C-alpha cells in the first residue's frame, strides 16, 4: 500500500486490486451503486463486490432497440450506457415528501421525507456527469433548492469512467458533453484491457478521491500510459453513432415552431413519455396528496411526470398541449432552445437514451437534421432568390 496521491495525479490500479476500491468505499458506509446485468440489460443497481459488475458484457443500441451481448474479453466497463441514468438515485421516481395528521387543534406535519442514502456511483460516464451538472443547476442553483436532491447529491461519491467505445445512438461529442470526463468526479477511470494486461488509469479529482485511493494498491502512471489512456477516449470521440449540428440551434427551433415536420413526428409519437423518463436531465414531477378514509391522516407524494402527459399542461378547461405534435415539440424545444433561456445551457448531453428507449425509434438527431434541411429561414431565402 502506498501513500495518498495528489489531486490531479494519474495512477494505475491493477484489475486484481479493483476490489480494494469498493472495499474502501464500503468501509466509509457508502451505498455502492454500479452497473449490473439484469433482465438482459446493464442496469445501475446496488453492488457489493466486483463480481456484481457486468464482467465481459456489452450492449448494442440503435433506435428503439437494445441488446445485451457477450464481449470477447473480461472488461468491467465494456458497455456503453444503461437504460436509466443516475437520475433515479439523485432525483427518485417516487418520494413521500411528508405525512400529516389533523387533530382538534389543527393540521400538523408529523414526518418529512426519509433521510437520503449516501451513494457511491461507480461507472458514471462523461455525458451522465454533465447531465448531473445540468440538474444541479435546476435543483440547487436557483431561488428554490430541492433539499431531497441536494442531500443526495452533496453526499455522493462519483467514480467516473471514460468511455472505451461509443454506442450507435451516442452523440455526446456534438453536445460537448463527452466522451472524456473532464470535471465533477472524485475519481475518473480509463480501463485498459489487452491480452496480458488489465488495469485502470485513475485520475484523482478531489481530496476525498485521493483519500480513498490512499487505501488501495496503486502505482504512479507513466507519461506513456497516460497517453495511451488519452488515446482510447480520443478514438471514441471519432466513433459517435450519431451527430447533432448545434449551430444556431436555439434560433433554429424557435423560427421553425410551425414546421410541418412536427405534424409528421406527431403521427409517429406514442406520447408514451419513455424519452422523458430515461432522459438524465428531464426533471419534471407531479405531487399527489392522499388521505386515509377518515380524512385525518394525509401524505404528499412526488412522482416523475412528463410533458407527454395530458395532465401536465392541464389548466382550467383542458390541456394546453392536447396534440401529439404539440407535446413532442414541447419536449424537443425545451431540450434544445427554451432550456437555454431558462438555465443558460442546452438540456441535452447526447447520451442517446431517448433514441434507444423510444419504442418506435424516434430520433432527436434525425429530427433536428430534417428541420435544418427544410429550415423556414432557408426556404424563405431560397424563395426570394
Amino acid at each position, binding site marked *: 500500500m502506498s501513500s495518498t496521491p495528489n489531486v490531479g495525479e494519474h495512477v494505475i490500479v491493477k484489475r486484481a486490486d479493483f476490489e480494494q476500491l469498493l472495499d474502501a468505499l464500503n468501509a466509509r458506509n457508502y451505498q455502492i451503486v454500479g452497473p449490473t446485468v439484469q433482465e438482459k440489460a446493464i442496469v445501475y443497481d446496488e453492488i457489493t463486490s466486483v463480481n456484481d459488475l457486468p464482467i465481459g458484457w456489452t450492449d448494442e443500441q440503435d433506435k428503439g432497440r437494445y441488446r445485451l451481448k457477450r464481449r470477447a474479453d473480461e472488461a468491467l466497463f465494456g458497455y456503453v450506457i444503461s437504460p436509466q441514468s443516475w437520475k433515479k438515485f439523485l432525483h427518485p421516481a417516487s418520494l413521500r415528501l411528508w405525512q400529516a395528521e389533523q387533530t382538534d387543534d389543527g393540521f400538523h406535519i408529523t414526518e418529512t421525507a426519509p433521510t437520503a442514502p449516501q451513494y457511491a456511483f461507480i461507472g458514471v460516464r462523461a455525458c451522465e456527469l454533465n447531465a448531473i451538472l445540468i440538474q444541479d443547476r435546476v435543483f440547487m442553483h436557483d431561488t428554490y433548492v430541492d433539499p431531497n436532491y441536494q442531500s443526495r447529491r452533496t453526499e455522493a461519491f462519483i467514480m467516473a469512467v471514460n468511455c472505451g467505445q461509443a454506442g450507435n445512438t451516442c452523440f455526446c461529442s456534438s453536445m460537448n458533453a463527452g466522451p472524456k470526463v473532464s470535471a465533477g468526479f472524485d475519481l475518473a477511470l480509463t480501463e485498459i484491457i489487452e491480452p496480458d494486461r488489465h488495469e485502470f488509469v485513475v485520475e484523482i479529482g478531489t481530496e476525498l478521491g485521493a483519500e480513498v485511493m490512499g487505501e488501495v494498491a496503486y502505482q504512479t502512471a507513466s507519461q506513456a500510459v497516460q497517453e495511451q489512456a488519452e488515446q482510447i477516449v480520443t478514438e471514441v470521440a471519432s466513433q459517435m453513432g450519431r451527430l447533432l449540428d448545434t449551430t444556431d440551434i436555439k434560433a433554429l427551433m424557435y423560427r421553425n415552431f410551425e414546421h410541418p415536420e412536427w405534424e409528421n413526428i406527431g403521427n*409517429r409519437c406514442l406520447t408514451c413519455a*419513455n424519452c422523458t423518463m430515461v432522459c438524465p436531465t428531464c426533471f419534471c414531477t407531479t405531487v399527489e396528496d392522499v388521505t386515509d378514509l377518515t380524512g385525518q391522516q394525509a401524505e404528499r407524494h412526488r412522482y416523475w411526470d412528463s410533458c407527454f402527459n395530458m395532465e401536465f399542461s392541464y389548466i382550467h378547461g383542458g390541456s394546453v398541449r392536447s396534440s401529439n405534435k404539440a407535446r413532442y415539440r414541447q419536449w424537443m424545444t425545451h431540450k434544445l432552445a427554451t432550456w437555454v433561456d431558462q438555465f443558460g445551457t442546452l438540456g441535452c448531453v447526447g447520451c442517446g437514451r431517448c433514441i434507444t428507449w423510444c419504442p418506435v425509434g424516434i430520433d432527436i438527431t434525425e429530427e433536428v437534421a430534417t428541420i435544418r434541411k427544410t429550415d423556414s429561414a432557408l426556404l424563405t431565402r431560397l424563395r426570394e432568390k
Partner: protein
Amino acid sequence: MLKKHKPKLAVWKFASCDGCQLSLLDCEDELLAVAGAVEIAYFPEASRATMRPPYDLSLVEGSITTAHDAERIQDIRRVSKSLITIGACATAGGIQSLRNFADVQDFINIVYASPEYINTLATSTPIATHVFVDYQLRGCPINKMQLVEVINAYLNGRKPNIASHSVCIECKRRGTTCVMVAHGTPCLGPVTHAGCGAICPAYNRGCYGCFGPMETPNTSALSTQWHETLGVDKDDIIRVFRGFNAFAEEFRKESDYYESAK
C-alpha cells in the same frame, strides 16, 4: 366532531366474472376501514343483509348483455346518487364484447347444448352506453388500491388520484427495463392506461392492455412498429387488440382496421 351520516354503498353485478367485486373483499385491512366509513347497504357477494334504496354510491361491475339488464341498470341509476363502474366489463364491455365482432347466434350454437333457452342481446356494451356514469375505474381486474382510492376520494369530496397516462411511466418509475426495446417483445404498454403498476413487463411479458386505452393512444404507430420491426403478423395484431378491452373505441378501431385490410 359531528357524527356524519354514513354514505350507503351498493355493489351491483352485470355480465362479469366477479373478479372486480372480489378485489373489494380482497382489500383486507382497508376493507375494515371502508366498512367503517360507509354503510354497506347492498353487496350480495359480501352480505345477505340489504338496505332499501336510495344509495349514495353504487359500484357497478359487468357489462350489459341482456334486455333485462338493460332495464335493471336504469333502475339502479335512478336510485344511486353517484355511480362508478368498476373493471373492463363495465367500462368497455369486457372480453364478452368479442360477440360484437361476430354473430352471437354462432357462439350460442357452439357453446350451449340447448341454444333455445338462451335469451341474450347481440352485443355486450359498457354501462356508460346506457346511463350516465360519474367515474369509470379501469382494469381487468381493477387494482384494489385504486378502488379504495376512488371510494376515499368520493368520501372526502375530491378528485381521485388516478393517472391516465401510459403503462411505460409505471415501468420507468419502478425501474423495469423496456421489454419491447431490450427483448423485442411486443408490448401494449405505450397505448395502455396505467393502473396495474406495470406487472407484466416486470415479469418479462408484454403488457396485455388490461386497463384499456390510455388518454391519447397512438395505436396505429405502435402496431406499425410491431409489424414492420418486430415482425408481428397482422392476425396477431387483431388478436392482441381484441382482449378484455376489445370494444374500447381506440382498440376496436385498430383491430377493425387490420381486419378490413385482410
